[in-house]
């Protein structure tokens, strides 16, 4: 019973945290792009004369979305048309359950892992849910009874499936090195140091995989420079026939996926909730100094570290989105299949060879590889 309550609290924490961050993204998107382009950005919505740099705009936007008319095209499949945005948001949201956002801590003799669902194949789960997200897109295009929406849906599906392969292979190297698919264990394994002072984060041991992962993951979020599925300025996308909150849900799913990718990049390559030189008993610096910390402080520092890394990644994605032009479709496919895919495969082979040569014991299935 208490276990259930703890899980509920954790789930609600992640749920509201993620949704609020997504709402904040709409504000961030407008403000950051404005600053980059020497503009001011959203600053008009106010409550009692308070504008707070336009922070009320997400609120105003959501009120607008919820009160707008919901139009279903004549001849469209009503059920699938409604289900498609639900799928998009649902699969984007459930994926967060497997992301660890802090180390375990003891509360009243109970060990609480700061992770909603402790799954020992969390990475597989995340990739399964990411793949299922394609259904929202293809159904939206299919159920709208609009040729342009259908074509947009097909473009999106082809893109997401192509890049999922590179994405999946890119992280194989990480899995081989840390020898686990459990994200909590994977983060814990990144707490060690290399040569006594370099934190053994994924980026240190798998820099190529990180670049491939980041590129493929950006393509998964369907945002510029990979926004061919929608092309908000000129091409028509799969949600052309959506209005009101149904459109809002696709919009939300986009931001949720961005946050998810930021979470994944943090977890796999930037040590998740790890703070450099921080162990469960306090800081232990390589030059010998120590700073003992109590357990709650340690856990809070971990959660803060994770949040900060995720936000930094979100800012980076936003910066990329407002810097780069859009790919052409053939360029997109060439980059995916002839660029990222071979690099990812070679990375896996090189990693495997190096691990085999070094005879690293920790990797459980190294014997099976070579």
């Amino acid at each position: 019973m208490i276990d259930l309550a703890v899980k509920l609290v954790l789930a609600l924490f992640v749920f509201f945290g993620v949704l609020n961050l997504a709402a904040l993204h709409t504000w961030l998107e407008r403000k950051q792009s404005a600053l980059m382009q020497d503009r001011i950005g959203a600053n008009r919505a106010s409550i009692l004369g308070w504008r707070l740099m336009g922070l009320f705009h997400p609120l105003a936007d959501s009120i607008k979305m919820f009160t707008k008319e919901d139009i279903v095209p004549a001849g469209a499949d009503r059920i699938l048309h409604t289900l498609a945005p639900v799928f998009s948001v649902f699969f984007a949201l459930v994926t967060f359950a497997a992301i660890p956002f802090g180390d375990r801590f003891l509360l009243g003799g109970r060990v609480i892992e700061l992770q909603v669902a402790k799954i020992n194949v969390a990475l597989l789960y995340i990739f399964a849910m990411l793949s299922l997200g394609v259904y929202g897109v293809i159904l939206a295009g299919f159920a709208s009874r609009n040729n342009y929406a259908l074509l947009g849906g097909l473009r999106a599906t082809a893109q997401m499936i192509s890049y999922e392969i590179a994405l999946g292979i890119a992280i194989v190297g990480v899995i081989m090195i840390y020898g686990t698919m459990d994200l909590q264990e994977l983060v814990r394994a990144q707490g060690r140091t290399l040569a006594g002072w370099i934190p053994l984060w994924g980026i240190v041991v798998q820099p190529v995989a990180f670049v491939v992962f980041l590129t493929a993951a950006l393509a998964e979020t369907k945002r510029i420079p990979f926004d061919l599925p929608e092309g908000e300025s000129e091409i028509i996308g799969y949600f052309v026939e959506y209005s009101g909150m149904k459109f809002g849900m696709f919009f939300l799913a986009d931001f949720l996926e961005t946050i998810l990718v930021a979470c994944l990049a943090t977890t796999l390559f930037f040590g998740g909730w790890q703070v450099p030189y921080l162990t469960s008993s306090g800081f232990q610096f390589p030059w010998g100094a120590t700073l003992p910390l109590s357990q709650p402080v340690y856990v809070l520092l971990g959660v803060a570290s994770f949040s900060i890394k995720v936000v930094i990644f979100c800012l980076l994605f936003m910066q990329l989105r407002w810097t780069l032009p859009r790919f052409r479709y053939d360029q997109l496919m060439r980059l995916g299949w002839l660029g990222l895919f071979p690099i990812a495969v070679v990375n896996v082979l090189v990693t495997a060879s190096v691990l085999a040569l070094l005879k690293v014991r920790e990797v459980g299935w190294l014997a099976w590889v070579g």
Partner: protein
Amino acid sequence: MAVKVLRRRELTVWEKLYIPQIVSGLKVTTAHLLRNLYLHSAHRLGLLQNRRAAVTFQYPEEPRPLAARFRSRHRLTVRDDGTPRCVGCMLCETVCPAHCITIVAAEHPDPNIEKYPVRFDIDLGVCVYCGYCVEVCPEDAIRMDTGILDVAAYSRDAMKLDIHELMNPSLRKPLLECTLKFPHKCRLAGGEASR
């Protein structure tokens, strides 16, 4: 005929790699972001007010500076005694290519002045803002220097300006009282204009 073949420069390997180009692009946008972030924060603290952070003008609160020759809404200039400088010569009404000016002239009590307008209406819904009326006026009686740009109304009638609004650009419709001391024709003084 000579044919000139334009050859595109081949991209170098460094450029084809794309990542360095992304980084150089990011450098530009991030420099703008950080500069503006710094300036906006300084403005919040009341510092560096002389350096603009954004090129945006927050329009209704912060109007853009107008050029000296800019043609905005018309006004009638006024003599020291509060009567219009216009002598009712009809030159502006004649030259107006849009036929938007209506003048009814009457005899001025001062024998040195020929006439004065009892009615002077401009239909802004028709006006093309060419400025000929200003150029042709021998008395410098009409000018287009009020700086009023936001001319908008819900009906065509409301776009028509009469002598009250032309002599006092700060007046806005609906006009409820007539403050002009000299005899003239308006809705409030037995005339027909400004319905």
